[in-house]
């Protein structure tokens, strides 16, 4: 609760500080706020809050972990974006404010325990993003992206609401525990409920960007700026995925055998479509978008795994988000007005820090141990192994294609003879790179501590 409030307040303060046109100051305020939010989230259950606790918003241990991850990733995204934000000094605070508001939504989405908070969280998460995507006013691509995102998004919202309404109609409650009870008491076959659940699932698939609701992904990621994309690919995906997994593993767990078929379909198609289309991209952000579709496919295995789904997702998301942020940071460094992949030629060989980071990030994404990406995939697949073996094998094959994609990028950027020109990396970017590298390499060790 406090974490949300701290972050929200920080967002507001940020907006006011923005009037001073001092982006450093804004950054400092925002960072402090986020760190404060992080700390309060860390001890959220260990002290008596000044605010009366609200039943609609609880933070269990897992939810707390996801919350921490979301805040940490936001911090990284904020820092990596600074170079870009501070260019238009009068707007810096707007970016930050919006991102923080959206983070608040993400936290709601992580901590929700009834449909009110869920719906609100979703909207608070999405609406600022609509704006952020299109915030480069002059840029026609950006506006197109935001148009597409807005319309598809609000369409999905409508579907989601219809689903919620149907579920309410069949169970008579918005509280997820009650809904669960109702389902366990034999509602599970009522058509209204099932269709409602399916509609919610459709909306979720849209939010996480899985086939066949993935279309917004590539366009929006390409149109948006690196900074915004980093935030979307990490935090938004994380929150949406968590809500998805939480709802379907906890609330609708009685319906898992019913939805599993569709989920598996979505998984496999997303995997192959994502990786195959990514192979043929020339724009880096677009390629990352497709690869994120594929990774979503992996993450969705968590939906089918009531015991360990959330933990596996957590580990997987650390790996995925950290390497994504690292890669986008690098892209931001090497980008010259276009974000063509050819810009990457030889950068890894010329700049050691970039080289190491991108090699390890890409290897982690292709699922090579001992990096976090591997353990995430390992957990997800091993839990699905016994029940859905053929699909696991398909996923493995797909991940081979993915490996090809990433290794190709790696080879390109490590080229010796290429015009590997040196780039100047700001301290903040270096910090982001190193932190995300740490996450990629050591994130899985958290498992060992637990």
């Amino acid at each position: 609760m406090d974490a949300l409030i701290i972050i929200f307040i920080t967002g507001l303060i940020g907006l006011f500080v923005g009037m001073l046109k001092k982006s450093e100051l804004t950054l400092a305020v925002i960072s402090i706020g986020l760190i404060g939010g992080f700390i309060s989230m860390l001890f959220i259950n260990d002290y008596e809050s000044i605010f009366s606790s609200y039943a609609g918003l609880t933070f269990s241990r897992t939810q707390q972990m996801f919350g921490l991850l979301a805040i940490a990733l936001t911090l990284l995204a904020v820092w990596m974006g600074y170079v870009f934000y501070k260019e238009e000094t009068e707007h810096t605070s707007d970016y930050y404010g919006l991102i923080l508001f959206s983070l608040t939504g993400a936290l709601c989405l992580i901590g929700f325990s009834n449909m009110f908070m869920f719906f609100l969280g979703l909207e608070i998460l999405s609406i600022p993003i609509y704006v952020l995507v299109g915030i480069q006013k002059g840029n026609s691509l950006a506006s197109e992206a935001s148009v597409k995102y807005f319309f598809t998004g609000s369409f999905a919202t409508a579907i989601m609401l219809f689903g919620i309404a149907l579920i309410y109609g069949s169970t008579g409650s918005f509280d997820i525990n009650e809904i669960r009870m109702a389902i366990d008491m034999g509602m599970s076959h009522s058509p209204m409920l099932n269709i409602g659940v399916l509609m919610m699932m459709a909306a979720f698939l849209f939010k996480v960007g899985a086939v066949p609701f993935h279309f917004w992904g590539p366009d929006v990621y390409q149109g948006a700026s690196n900074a915004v994309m980093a935030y979307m690919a990490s935090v938004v995906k994380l929150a949406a995925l968590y809500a998805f997994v939480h709802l379907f593993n906890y609330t609708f767990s009685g319906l898992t055998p019913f939805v599993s078929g569709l989920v598996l379909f979505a998984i496999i198609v997303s995997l192959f479509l994502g990786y195959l289309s990514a192979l043929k991209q020339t724009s880096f952000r677009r390629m990352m978008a497709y690869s994120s579709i594929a990774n979503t496919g992996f993450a969705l295995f968590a939906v089918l795994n009531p015991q360990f789904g959330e933990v596996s997702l957590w580990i997987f998301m650390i790996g995925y988000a950290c390497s994504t942020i690292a890669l986008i940071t690098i892209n931001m460094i090497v980008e010259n007005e276009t974000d063509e992949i050819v810009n990457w030629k030889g950068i890894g060989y010329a700049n050691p820090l970039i080289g190491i980071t991108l090699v390890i990030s890409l290897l982690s994404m292709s699922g090579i141990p001992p990096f976090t990406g591997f353990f995430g995939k390992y957990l997800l697949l091993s839990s699905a192994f016994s029940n859905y073996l053929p699909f696991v094998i398909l996923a493995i094959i797909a991940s081979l294609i993915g490996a090809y994609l990433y290794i190709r990028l790696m080879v390109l950027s490590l080229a010796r003879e290429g015009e590997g020109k040196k780039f100047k990396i700001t301290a903040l970017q270096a910090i982001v790179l190193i932190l995300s590298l740490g996450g990629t390499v050591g994130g899985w060790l958290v498992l060992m501590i637990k």
Partner: protein
Amino acid sequence: MELIILPLILGIIAFFLPTNWVRPFGLLASLSVLAVSFVHLMNFDPENYVLISNPAEIFPLGLTFKMGYDGLALTMVLLTNAVISIILLANWNRDISSNGRFTGLTLLMQCALLGLFTSLDGILFYTFWELTLIPIFLILYWFGKQDNNRALFKFFLYTLLGSLMMLLSFIGLAYFSPSFSYFQLVQANFDGKAVEAALIMGGILFAFAVKIPLFPFHTWQAPTYTNAPMAGTMLLSALMLKMALYGMIKWMIPIGFEGLVYLKWPVITLGGIGIVYGAIIAMKQKDLKTLFAYASISHLGLIAAGIMLFTVSAIEASMVQIINHSIVAIALFLCAGIIEQRLQTRNIEDLGGIAKVAPHFGFWFAVMTFISVSVPFTAGFIGEFVLIKELFTAHWVIGLTAATTLVFGAVYMLRAYQGSMFGPSKVTVFADLTWNEYAVFGILTVAAVGFGLYPQVIIDFIKPSIKFTQELMAGDLTFTK
């Protein structure tokens, strides 16, 4: 533990050294690691396991960070360290060895290999298995031919596909064993589930078959070798292929033993085909490296087939043969490398009469040729002798098939040697060997002849660990330190 840490640290240091320090540093570093492993050897008793990392509890995912070695593993460890030092020595007079990245990557490679050989935990094994891929990949990419991307991808993806299959097997294995500790994996009981065992074994086998490479999975090898720098080829053929063979002996068969009945003969057949196929193709190859690549397909087919028999003698012999093949691989690729360095070509048809201008090189190349056709007095003879004997005992047809390597081996090796060394001298100027090349050839010859006259050293070393593994599999041993 220092065995694995040391090369890691040294490797990282090597990246940041000034150019003119790198060369001696690399050699000294590898030698120091070798020395450390010798210290391990000094106070090692083949009769028991040495656990260098042995945490008590079992971590999530069934991870137990167990590491240690028995005779088998220690043999491979020593082999690795020795080979790495020899490779660095062999590259002394090439400017690649003064490149910090090359030396660093080689040492990292060494670290990964040592980890692989000493790991006693499934996931750890898999991890190191994958880690070895990265340095070699970078070495091949940075120091190989510049237009080698296609071969590179072929190599990487092929091996990656293999290791993913192995990953599947390990995931499946988790259902049969409480943890990934080697000892529990080996004791995983498949009683009545032979098919599952065979499937799991098959997955692991796929990874190994690609690395070895067994007959239909070998297509990555020749292009990779030809594009690779000399050091890369040496690393690949002298060490990375051995990982697979070691894995077969130490991991694959003991784990999936119940399933061996299904896989034994298919693999032996593939091995047999490989023996003949590699040899026959090698006969008409023009590029020396390609020729040697196919030759090694032929040799390794024999070893793999022998291992699948899983009789004690066969495994002892295959260990002898593994060591011998490392020697041969380094020797032959060094010869090819020397020729390429001096003449910028490896095509037999452009060569000829080198022995006249460079008599010493001619002599040593001849010695290496004879070592590689495994005449008596060399380790290869003992290895092939016993392996073919075991195969012949198992079934006479495979015995005959394997024996063709005696004749065919002579055919292609002598063709390669005479084609490049004898005949009308197309080559007029050829700088004779440098001191480090003399040293390498000398060391290799001594090793080959030494092991050829007294292979008992190796056998005494590994026999207990084989016996131990067998007892472990039989389950009469409740050994879970």
